[in-house]
């Protein structure tokens, strides 16, 4: 009984905003991405379609994200999504497809809920995250996104 209670309490992934995640994330991210990109570079022959390369790179970019930030619900969701896409060989653009932002609700509460839903749909695997964790996951996701952008910019700046 007590063990059950203990397990119940351990639902939360992280107890406070993870500073540690930041440094480890960047390190892991770059290492994964660089090795993956080198592989792509080696494998690409001149005849290969530019789109294919794009898809591969995009896949690797997101995969590196997943691998560098494990332990979050959104990273699991992202992994699932990537695997599904990779199998089907479909590169979907994560743009604004999912948002129903044009809805006009009258009541403020409903609007708020609508927005929360939109926000949750933005997070990969967001629908499965329980309400209490949504904000935590959102924090870590935004942080990792920021760092990802930073790293990518560095890479590109370096190689251009």
């Amino acid at each position: 009984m007590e063990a059950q209670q203990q397990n119940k309490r351990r639902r939360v992934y992280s107890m406070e905003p993870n500073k540690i995640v930041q440094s480890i994330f960047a390190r892991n991210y770059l290492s994964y991405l660089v090795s993956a990109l080198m592989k792509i570079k080696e494998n690409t022959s001149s005849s290969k379609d530019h789109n294919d390369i794009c898809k591969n790179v995009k896949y690797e970019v997101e995969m590196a994200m997943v691998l560098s930030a494990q332990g979050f619900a959104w990273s699991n969701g992202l992994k699932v999504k990537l695997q599904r896409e990779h199998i089907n060989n479909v590169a979907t653009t994560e743009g604004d497809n999912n948002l129903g932002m044009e809805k006009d609700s009258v009541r403020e509460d409903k609007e708020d809920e609508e927005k929360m839903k939109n926000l949750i749909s933005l997070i990969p695997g967001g629908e499965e995250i329980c309400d209490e964790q949504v904000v935590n996951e959102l924090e870590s996701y935004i942080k990792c996104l920021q760092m990802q952008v930073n790293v990518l910019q560095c890479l590109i700046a370096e190689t251009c």
Partner: protein
Amino acid sequence: MLHCLNTSSNLVGGGNISDMTVLERQRARIKFQNEHQQFSGNGFSSSHQQQFMMLGCDSALGEIVTNSMKPDPDYENGFDEETVKKRKTDNKVDLNSKDKRIKVCVEEGESKIVEQRKGQKNTKFNNGNKNKRENCEDSNSKENSKGSEIQNQKPDYIHVRARRGQATDSHSLAERVRREKISERMKYLQDLVPGCNKIAGKAGMLDEIINYVQSLQRQVEFLSMKLAAVNPRLDFNIDELFAKEVFTQNFPTTGIPSEMTNPAYLQFNSAQQLVSCCGGLINNMGIIPPEIGLCRNINAPTSASLPEIFLDSSIFTHILPSSTWEGNFQNLHNVDFDQARSISFPSQPFTGMVEASNMKMEM
């Protein structure tokens, strides 16, 4: 739970277990808590006091009360504020029926056992739920309102107090707790999302956050496409990757990198330069440039140089006056300490943090 059942049946003198329903046990528990609180001299709401005084008239109760004088420091500390517990399931106890209370109290002759058990449970409860309770402290301070009490037996429940004139059923209380939690974390999100500080309303903030996440995702997409275009020309010369220009590009506002490359530091190789630059950057910007982590990774083959940097306190004493450095520095620790190397670190306060952060990593 079974324990409780047994003890309560003992208390009734081996009577029917069915008589001591969950409800009554809860009431008994609250009763004892109240008594305890009374004797430890903490603040009490008027309603509680009234109830207690009524009960105090009963002689049997007086006996019980004197018996239950065993001090329980943990228990005291835990219930310093008046906390109202809320049960997640829908069992509500109507505490306004004072007759039942008296009856239950009389039945429980052996108070010590129950009290002990409660003490144990409550200490566990205290340790597990300090965070949750803190959330409700400000609402707890509104004592004299028409509060409704809801009891619980299980430890991991959220404290909620219904404020004056607000709905008091468990669903809306749960809803309110949820909303309060979310709004609290929203404040933290405000710091993350740039430009969110001016916006006050929750709706506006949500909009901002949505826009920001979308823009970040689009940026990632765009950058990955650009990377794909650049890919054939990739030549990952790592040392160059971490040359100063990267810093100046990403942190154009700080003049720190140029400062750090004074002649004293020029003799270092690029990795060390990176670290010293990073120290300055951390100091001023309060963030960890991702390149620190990168530096560690890249220099794995030539890792001997890095520890020396960490050991060289002269660099860091030069760099860091501010306290933000402390919090960030543990990241440098983690970056370096993943290999089993005993590096004695010059300043003591950090060791504790390293351990704590290592623990977090294991999670």
